[in-house]
C-alpha cells in the first residue's frame, strides 16, 4: 500500500507537478519514461513518489523515448494502467511507436509538454511536437493552464480505458508557460480522484494465458485499410465518451470542460482560434477589444483529436472574420490548424473570412498586444468584407514583414 500523500484543498503547482500528481492519484501500474526538457519534472516528481513510497507501481527509467513508448506498449498490453511524459525531440523519437500504440488500441496516457522541434535547437514552447502527433491516431487534449493539465490527465485515463474507446490519449500543456509556472490548483482528494478514474479493466490481457493474444500482426493490402478505417471510426466514436467523462468530472470537481471552449462568442463579430496558453492571452485581448467597442471572441479546441469539426463550425459560423493561430512552422503551406478550421467553415452558409497567423515559434512571447493587433486586422477585414492582408502572416517576427497566399474574394 502506498503512503498517504497530504494535499491541501488549494495547492500551488506548476503544470508538470499537476500532471505528476494526477499520475500518482490514478495509481499508474507502470511508468516507463525518459527525461527531456521541459517535461523532465513530471518524471522526476514521479521518481520522488517512488523513492518515498507514495506509489505502488513500477517505474522503469529507460534509455530513450523510443524505448519509453515501446515499454509502455508492452506494459499496457500486459493489462495495467500505463502513463509517461515527453516533449519535442523525445516526442519525435517516439513517433514510430505512437502509431503502434494506437494501432494496437492500447490506452496509454502521454503527458506532452509542448516544445519546439530542432533545428535550430530550442527548449521553449511551441506546438511543433503536438502537430507531429496529429495523425498518430491518439486522442489529443489541450490544457491551457496547470489546473487543466491536472484535470485532463485524470480524464485521459477514464476516456482511453473506456471499452468503447480503447485508444491512447495525449494531454498537452505549453512548455514553460504552463509547465514551469506555479499557479493555484484545486486537486481532488486521492479517494475522489481514484473513484473518478476507476479500476482498469483490461481487454486482450497478455497476462491472461487462458486466452492467448497476438499483438502487432502484419496486414497488407488485404486487411490494412479495414484496420485503419476501424481505428479512425473508434476515434470519431470517442466523442460521446469524452463528453460523458467531462460531465462526470464536473460532478466531482465543479469544473466544466467542453470539446470546444468558446469565450464571448455569443455576439462576436471577430474571433481568434488558438491552442494552449495563447487562449488565455487572447481572452484578455478580447476583453480589451470589447472596451473599444469591437465584438471580439475566442474559440479553442479542448480536444484537438478527434477534431471538433462540428463544434468549431457552430462556434464560428456567424463571425465575420476569423484569425487561426498556428504555433508551428508551417513548412511551405498554410498552418495545419488553419486548414482544419477553414474546412469546417467552408461548410457554413456564411463562410467567414479566415486568416492565418504563424506566431510564438521557439517560445517567442505572444502578448495581449499581439492578440489585439490580430483582432484589429480581423475588424478591418470584417469592415471591408474581404481579407485586407496576405492570408498568412507572421506575428511577432523581427525583420521585414512576411506574408504569403492571396485571397480572390473582394
Amino acid at each position, binding site marked *: 500500500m502506498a503512503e498517504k500523500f497530504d494535499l491541501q484543498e488549494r495547492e500551488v503547482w506548476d503544470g508538470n507537478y499537476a500532471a505528476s500528481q494526477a499520475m500518482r492519484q490514478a495509481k499508474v*501500474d*507502470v511508468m*516507463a519514461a525518459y527525461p527531456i526538457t521541459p517535461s523532465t519534472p513530471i518524471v522526476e516528481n514521479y521518481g520522488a513518489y517512488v523513492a518515498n513510497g507514495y506509489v*505502488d*507501481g*513500477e517505474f*522503469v*527509467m*529507460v*534509455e*530513450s523515448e*523510443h*524505448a519509453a513508448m*515501446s*515499454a*509502455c*506498449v*508492452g*506494459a*499496457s*498490453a*500486459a*493489462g*495495467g494502467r*500505463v502513463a509517461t511524459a515527453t516533449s519535442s525531440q523525445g516526442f519525435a523519437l517516439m513517433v*514510430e*511507436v505512437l502509431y*503502434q500504440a494506437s494501432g494496437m488500441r492500447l490506452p496509454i496516457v502521454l503527458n506532452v509538454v509542448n516544445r519546439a522541434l530542432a533545428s535550430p535547437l530550442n527548449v521553449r514552447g511551441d506546438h511543433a511536437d503536438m502537430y507531429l502527433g496529429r495523425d498518430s491516431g491518439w486522442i489529443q487534449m489541450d490544457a491551457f493552464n496547470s489546473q487543466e493539465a491536472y484535470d485532463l490527465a485524470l480524464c485521459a485515463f477514464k476516456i482511453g480505458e473506456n471499452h468503447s474507446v480503447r485508444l491512447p490519449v495525449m494531454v498537452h500543456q505549453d512548455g514553460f508557460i504552463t509547465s514551469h509556472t506555479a499557479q493555484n490548483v484545486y486537486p481532488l482528494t486521492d479517494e475522489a480522484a481514484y473513484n473518478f478514474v476507476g479500476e482498469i479493466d483490461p481487454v486482450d*490481457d*497478455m*497476462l*491472461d*494465458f*487462458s486466452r*492467448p*493474444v*497476438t*499483438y*502487432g*500482426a*502484419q*496486414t*497488407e493490402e488485404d*486487411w490494412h485499410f479495414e*484496420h485503419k478505417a476501424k481505428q479512425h471510426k473508434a476515434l470519431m466514436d470517442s466523442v460521446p465518451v469524452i463528453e460523458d467523462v467531462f460531465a462526470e468530472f464536473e460532478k466531482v470537481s465543479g469544473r466544466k470542460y467542453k470539446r470546444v471552449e468558446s469565450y464571448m462568442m455569443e455576439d462576436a463579430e471577430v474571433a481568434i482560434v488558438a491552442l494552449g496558453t495563447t487562449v488565455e492571452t487572447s481572452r484578455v485581448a478580447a476583453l480589451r477589444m470589447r472596451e473599444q467597442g469591437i465584438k471580439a471572441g475566442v474559440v479553442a479546441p479542448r480536444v484537438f483529436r478527434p477534431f471538433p469539426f462540428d463544434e468549431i463550425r457552430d462556434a464560428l459560423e456567424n463571425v465575420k472574420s476569423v484569425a487561426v493561430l498556428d504555433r508551428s512552422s508551417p513548412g511551405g503551406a498554410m498552418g495545419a490548424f488553419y486548414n482544419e478550421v477553414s474546412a469546417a467553415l467552408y461548410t457554413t452558409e456564411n463562410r467567414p473570412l479566415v486568416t492565418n497567423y504563424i506566431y510564438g515559434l521557439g517560445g517567442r512571447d505572444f502578448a495581449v498586444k499581439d492578440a489585439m493587433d490580430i483582432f484589429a486586422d480581423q475588424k478591418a477585414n470584417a469592415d471591408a468584407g474581404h481579407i485586407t492582408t496576405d492570408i498568412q502572416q507572421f506575428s511577432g517576427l523581427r525583420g521585414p514583414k512576411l506574408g504569403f497566399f492571396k485571397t480572390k474574394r473582394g
Partner: protein
Amino acid sequence: MAITSVKNLKEFSTANDRFEGAHTLCPGCAHSMIVRELMNCTDDNLVVTTNTGCLEVSTAVYPFTSWDTSWMHIGFENAASAAGGAEAMYKARKKKGTLKDNDAPVKFVAFGGDGSTFDIGFQWLSGAFERGHDFTYICLDNENYANTGGQRSSATPIGATTSTAQAGTHSYGKKEKKKDIVAIMAAHGAPYVAQLAPNKWKSMAKGFQKALETEGPCFINTVSPCCTEWRFDPKDTISITDLATDTLMFPIYEIIDGHELNILYRPKNVLPVEEYLAAQGRYKHLFKPENKHVIEEIQKNINEYWEMLQRREEARV
C-alpha cells in the same frame, strides 16, 4: 519452474506445442527449430516479443497466428523494451493481486534476428540488460538481413557475399569482422550468456532452460543457418550447422555472471573451415586463387578465438 525432459528428441519435439507448424518460414529455415525448442523446454506461461524480421513476418500475418501464447511485435528494434515493459507490469500486477492467475509462473522471452540484435535494436537490448529485467533474449543469428533479401549486417562474417557487400571483380564480399555480440552482452554483467546451435539440441534446450531459470536478463546467440541467403539445399540445414560447430566457426559456450566461461562442445575432430565455406554459395568466390588469403584470415581468426575461449575457461576470470 516446470522443466520439460529433454532426453528423447521425438518426445521433446511435441512436448509443449505452443508454436504452430503452420507458418511461412522458408523450408529448411532453422528459426522454427530454435523457437520450438524454446517453447517446448518449459511448462511455464510465456510472453514472447519479437523484433521485425523473418520470424515475425512468417508467424503473425492477419488473420492467422502461429503463437499459442501471448505474443507481441512492435518494431524492428524494440522487442527487448516491450518484454521489459510487460515484465514490469507483471511485477506491478502480481504485487497488487490483479492478475488472472497470481500464482502461475510467467517467463518473458524476446526474439530478434541478427540485424535487430547486433544493429538497429542494439540500444534497446543494451538498455534492457542494464535495467536488469527478468527476461531471456534470443538472437536468431543468420548473419544477414534475410527478411529484406540478404543485405549485410554487422553479424555478416568476413568474405560472405550479400546484396550490399557483394563479391565482384573488385571485391571479395564483406571486409569487416563480425561483431562479437556474445562478449558484448557478457560485458553487461548478465547472469547468463551463451552461444548455442540447433544441431546440439540437448545443450541448446539446457541452455534455454538455464536462461529461463536464471533471474535477470539472459542472452543467447543461436546459430540459424539460412538456406536462402547462405545458399545451400534446405535439407542440409543441420549438416551445415554440424560443419559450423565442428569447424569452430560457431563455438558453443556459455558465460556466467560475465566472467565464468564454459565450453559446451569440443569437436573430436576439428575440421578445416574450407569444409564449412565450400558447402555454401555465399562463400563460393573465396575459392578463386586471388581470394585464398581471405580463407586463411578466417581460419586464423577461428584459431585465435578458440584459443582465447579455452584460456578464459581455464582462467575462470
